[in-house]
């Protein structure tokens, strides 16, 4: 019984090199190899050149880990955005984490009362860099329907990257907002909020253990 053995590594390298240049393996009827411009086109169709920043931004933007955080009515529409019709998992955001240490996107869904504000700030501080915040709905972006003693707009105590208006915003509106955030992250990861809010130096320092 003859076992077909894999050719040696160097031979396989050479074979791959030939494949890349448009050739065939040894032993078959070989067409002409690609040379010059055709070779350039062939390679360009198959190899991508980019910068590390862009790659990392692309990877980050396509895998937000939202924090599972719902406060009030907007949370119901957030469920629907993760539901079967408007499926947030299509874009890669289905892993709602329960712990802020593992999340990088906080979607403030609902009204923020004065009792809850310091807790949200604590949650936001516990998230790892880089992190983004979406303020979903009218109540946390501005004061919404209830402009009274009990509520705080989210901008007052934490930096928000994106506001989604609506009361509650449709799941499609939330998706539009998230995709806009994704585009923002792909084009310009550093949104400059640290300079605007004088927060340079508040990144979590790595612990020297």
């Amino acid at each position, binding site marked *: 019984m003859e076992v077909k053995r894999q050719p040696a590594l160097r031979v396989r390298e050479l074979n791959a090199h030939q494949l890349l240049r448009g050739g065939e393996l040894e032993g078959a009827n070989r067409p002409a190899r690609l040379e010059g411009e055709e070779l350039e086109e062939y390679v360009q169709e198959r190899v991508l050149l980019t910068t590390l920043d862009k790659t990392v931004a692309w990877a980050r933007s396509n895998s937000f880990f939202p924090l*599972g*955080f*719902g*406060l*009030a*009515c907007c*949370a*119901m*529409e957030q*469920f*629907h955005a993760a*539901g*079967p*019709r408007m499926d947030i998992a299509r874009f890669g955001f289905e892993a709602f984490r*329960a712990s*802020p240490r593992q999340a990088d996107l906080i979607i403030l869904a*609902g*009204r923020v*009362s004065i*009792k*809850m504000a310091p*807790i949200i700030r604590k*949650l936001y501080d516990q998230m790892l860099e880089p992190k983004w915040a979406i303020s979903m709905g009218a*109540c946390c972006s501005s004061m919404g*329907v*209830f*402009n*009274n*003693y*009990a*509520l705080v707009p989210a901008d007052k105590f934490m930096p928000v990257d994106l506001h989604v208006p609506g*009361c*509650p915003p*449709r799941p499609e509106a939330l998706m539009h907002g998230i995709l806009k955030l994704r585009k923002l992250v792909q084009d310009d990861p550093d949104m400059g909020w640290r300079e605007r809010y004088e927060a340079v130096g508040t990144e979590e320092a790595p612990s020297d253990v």
Partner: protein
Amino acid sequence: MTPGEQPTLSEYRRREQSITLSPLDEQAEREESAQDATQELLTLNFGPHHPATHGVLRLLVTLQGEVVRDIKPIIGYVHTGIEKTAEDKAYWKVIPIVERMDYLSYYFNAMAYCGAVETLLEVQVPTRGQYLRVIHLELNRIASHLIWLGTSALDLGAVSIFLYCLRERELILDLFEMSSGARMHTRYFQVGGVIDDIPSGFERRLREFLKVMPGRADEYGAILNSNQIVLERLRGTCPLDADTLLSLGVTGPLLRAAGNPWDLRKATPYSSYEDFQFKIPVGTVGDNYDRYRCRVAEIKESVRIIEQALDGLPEGPYVSPDRKVALPPRHELSTSMEALIHHFKLVTEGFRVPPGEVYYAIESPRGELGCFVRSDGSSKPARVHMRDPSFVNLQALSHMAEGGYIADMIATVAMLDPILGGIDR
């Protein structure tokens, strides 16, 4: 402040610390002498941010091992001052404010408030308006129970039920969008009736939904009813008898699961509920499993009510013809001067309500939802108080879950169906 110094904390902040340990009673130690004498009670904070607390509910749980000894719920993390804001607005502008209280049963909030104001004004809602209200109320009941089922199953670990329930809920929200233009918080109910008649495709779409829904409810039953995990976690856990529940003020499916068939739709029928035939699902033991089965059965009963309402939907006006209370139809504005004046007066100042106080109670998916409106004769209410069922039902949590394990407590919170928007208002 030097690095080693502790900041002085107020009493409130000190109580916010996450964990406290306290020695067990000496009495209890002597009684359970077989156990380790160095056992301690652990007070754990199920913080406002927790995947299993159905909103921002904070529970201070005192544990002995895994057995729950004491639960203190702390609420107020989504307090919105709804009742205070409502005092500042004209009567019909209060409707969207009050709708956002119990955010899963928005039609019920509006119904309780509109019912109270209609009682004060002595305005009759025409039958077509009442039937339309019933259709939307029962659709909202189904939608609320679907979210309850989805999130409770999620707590127990059955993730796919969540997606199935959301699939049905999308159908219901499509219907709401057809009739009023918005999926949630629709402002469909107005004082005197509903804001607009149902459009032409609504009935057909609703019938398609009604054909599909009982089968889906049976599907959920088939998946969960005999499931070993669901049975082990829900059957026999955290029961509470009907008398204790009544003394705690609990109504709704929790009370019905314990055997008391009290339902305001049958006892004090409002909005022509007496025209419909439906059964009240009642449990026997009052444990978590009965609560679960009661609510799923209620979904099917709601489907029957909607079918009867749709079949018997009478012709006629959908809102009260009293122009001093309800907006005139737009086509009259170009021909009738009185209609124009009424429209102007209603939109700018609003109607005035004679002074008095009224408490109007309806049956929401969670229990008795009451609205207390006090009017002092002006166009803004002097006090609006919503008696929210979840606020009162929450007091039963400590009675139910004490003596059980933590996992049972999680299941009990799920079966209690608390909606923090209603609790905190």
